[in-house]
């Protein structure tokens, strides 16, 4: 695209909005009388504040929550953009439904005022999170000004063991290189372990690029990508599909491409990971212990602060820490393969007494698919609540919470202080690790429950 001095000026192929941050972008445009350019390439979903209890309406437990939904709906209708509303069959978390509908395609520029937009880079798109003002910019002009980011290639090489997956890869990366390890970079995930991941696992890996402070995470599109996209609602069909495919096959980085930074991680010995602190970089093997400050990869002050918040001691064995709650869902791990993985662990078992457990499918389609496979019955029989789709308890919007000081093992992306509610202590892990922990009532190594 056109460029001169300063930032490049790039065309934006898809803009996604949600009721939390998109609402204010739409209102900002309306106040200034700026029309949307490219309404047919603009989409909006209701995911962030919407209630997930069965039989939901526009009402939410969050004070003022209803206003976000109704004003987003009104603004989306007025602007003439496609809205995946509360009761729409295709409603769901933006980064789950965009690929599911075939809206995220290789080579596209995709933005959304949501940091986890990098998820969609897994199809080989350039997808990144922006603020609400930048969203207004993209909507009003169909473009954004962007400095070309530095590049980083992260290779995961080797073979993943049983019950070790994309979530564990990402936590390993962030714990080894820090939460700022990819700051501002366009990250390409590569290597034999990435090639072997199915599409849904690739979304999980790219989703966590923002926890590494990357501007985006992406994976070169290949046959796994193409077979995932073929036939999806908004994906090209027929002759256009063939032309698109030929184009997409040219998108991968050249064999000799130079990156500003290269990282390589051997995954043969990787174990299921879990966080112990209040940043995604505070992670270690589920078989490990809470690290001493010297092994924590963080400053003494951050280490002390994190352990005080988490009520843990250095040297404490993680796989014996008692929990109060378990959460499965989110744009990180709320897809059908995530629910299948957890259901395999839960099948025929019950969660430990006193544990509150929730499963919130990432989209309404995921929910229907899970119900068609009988997974909902497994979750319910085990003692999980079975919900409508949405972001739910990935973050605390002021409505539902797990309780002050409660400890939760969660398949989400952020273990920040207060992220899941005031004082709530979050341990991030894979859906299988969450399921195993719910059954045993403490942080658990799923491999002790399940043979491969």
């Amino acid at each position: 695209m056109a460029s001169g001095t300063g930032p490049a000026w790039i065309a934006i192929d898809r803009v996604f909005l949600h009721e939390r941050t998109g609402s204010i972008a739409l209102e900002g445009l309306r106040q200034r009388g700026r029309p949307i350019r490219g309404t047919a390439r603009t989409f909006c979903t209701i995911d962030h504040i919407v209630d997930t209890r069965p039989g939901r309406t526009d009402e939410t437990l969050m004070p003022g929550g209803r206003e976000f939904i109704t004003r987003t709906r009104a603004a989306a209708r007025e602007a003439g953009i496609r809205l995946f509303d509360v009761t729409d069959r295709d409603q769901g978390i933006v980064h789950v439904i965009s690929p599911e509908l075939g809206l995220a395609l290789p080579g596209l520029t995709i933005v959304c005022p949501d940091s986890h937009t990098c998820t969609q880079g897994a199809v080989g798109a350039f997808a990144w999170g922006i603020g609400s003002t930048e969203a207004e910019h993209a909507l009003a002009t169909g473009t954004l000004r962007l400095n070309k980011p530095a590049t980083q290639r992260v290779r995961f090489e080797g073979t993943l063991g049983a019950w070790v997956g994309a979530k564990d890869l990402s936590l390993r990366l962030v714990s080894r290189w820090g939460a700022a390890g990819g700051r501002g970079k366009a990250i390409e995930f590569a290597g034999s372990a990435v090639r072997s991941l199915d599409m849904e696992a690739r979304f999980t890996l790219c989703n966590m690029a923002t926890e590494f402070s990357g501007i985006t995470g992406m994976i070169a599109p290949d046959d796994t990508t193409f077979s995932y996209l073929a036939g999806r609602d908004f994906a090209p069909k027929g002759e256009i599909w063939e032309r698109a495919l030929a184009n997409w096959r040219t998108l991968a980085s050249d064999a000799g491409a130079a990156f500003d930074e290269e990282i390589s991680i051997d995954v043969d010995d990787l174990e299921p990971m879990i966080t112990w602190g209040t940043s995604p970089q505070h992670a270690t093997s589920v078989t490990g212990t809470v690290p001493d400050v010297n092994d924590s990869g963080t400053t003494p002050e951050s280490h002390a602060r994190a352990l005080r918040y988490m009520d843990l001691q250095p040297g404490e064995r993680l796989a014996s820490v008692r929990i109060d709650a378990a959460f499965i869902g989110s744009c990180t791990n709320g897809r059908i393969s995530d629910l299948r993985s957890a259901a395999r662990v839960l099948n025929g078992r019950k969660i430990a007494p006193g544990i509150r457990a929730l499963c919130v499918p990432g989209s309404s389609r995921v929910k229907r698919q899970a119900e068609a496979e009988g997974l909902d019955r497994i979750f319910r029989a085990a003692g999980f609540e079975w919900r409508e789709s949405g972001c739910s308890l990935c973050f605390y919007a002021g409505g539902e919470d797990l309780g002050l000081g409660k400890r939760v093992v969660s398949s989400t992306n952020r273990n920040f202080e207060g992220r899941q509610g005031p004082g709530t202590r979050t341990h991030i892990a894979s859906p299988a690790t969450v399921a195993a922990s719910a059954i045993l009532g403490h942080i658990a190594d799923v491999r002790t429950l399940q043979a491969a």
Partner: protein
Amino acid sequence: MQPFQTLTAVAAPLLRDNVDTDSIIPSREIKSVSKQGLAAGLFAGWRYRGAGERDPDPDFVLNQPRFSAAGILLAGDNFGCGSSREHAVWALADQGFRAIIAPSFAPIFHDNCINNGVLALCLPRATVAALADAILTLQADPHLTIDLDRQELSGVATGVIAFSIDADVRLRLLEGLDAIDLSLRRLTDLDAFYERDRQERPWVYL
């Protein structure tokens, strides 16, 4: 957008690394579709004694009389990581902050600052630590002056420190330019692009 040229203000040190936007403003504090009135939610999990309460914790830096009118925040590495919520910047601005000085910023937060006329200034970690130390430990006058045109930071405790900042960011802040206007002025340049791109990548255009 209000131009940013020079600023003299009290600098409040909060040198924690990886301060996320959930900490800057918890989601529960975003109660309406508005950019206004967010100051009360700023650092709500840290500045009040209990969750959901409004009883100030006297230990938190912004609750100390010396820093209650701060206009500059001295922050830690990777400030503003996590959620893209622009409410983090709106809350800081609503509280009176016009500049944040840190060793580094998370990228979305950085851009959100600039889009709201808030200077996000990167200085070496040791420099930020020395500034904080002078203000907190040596009880130096906490006022700092930022001259964006000359790219200089000065204060009693520090003397004059030269800094450099991205030329486009500097210009936009100095002149209070709205980036949307910059793009809107060029939109006709796009016609030829769209015409060609529709032929080359028809699958993009729904």
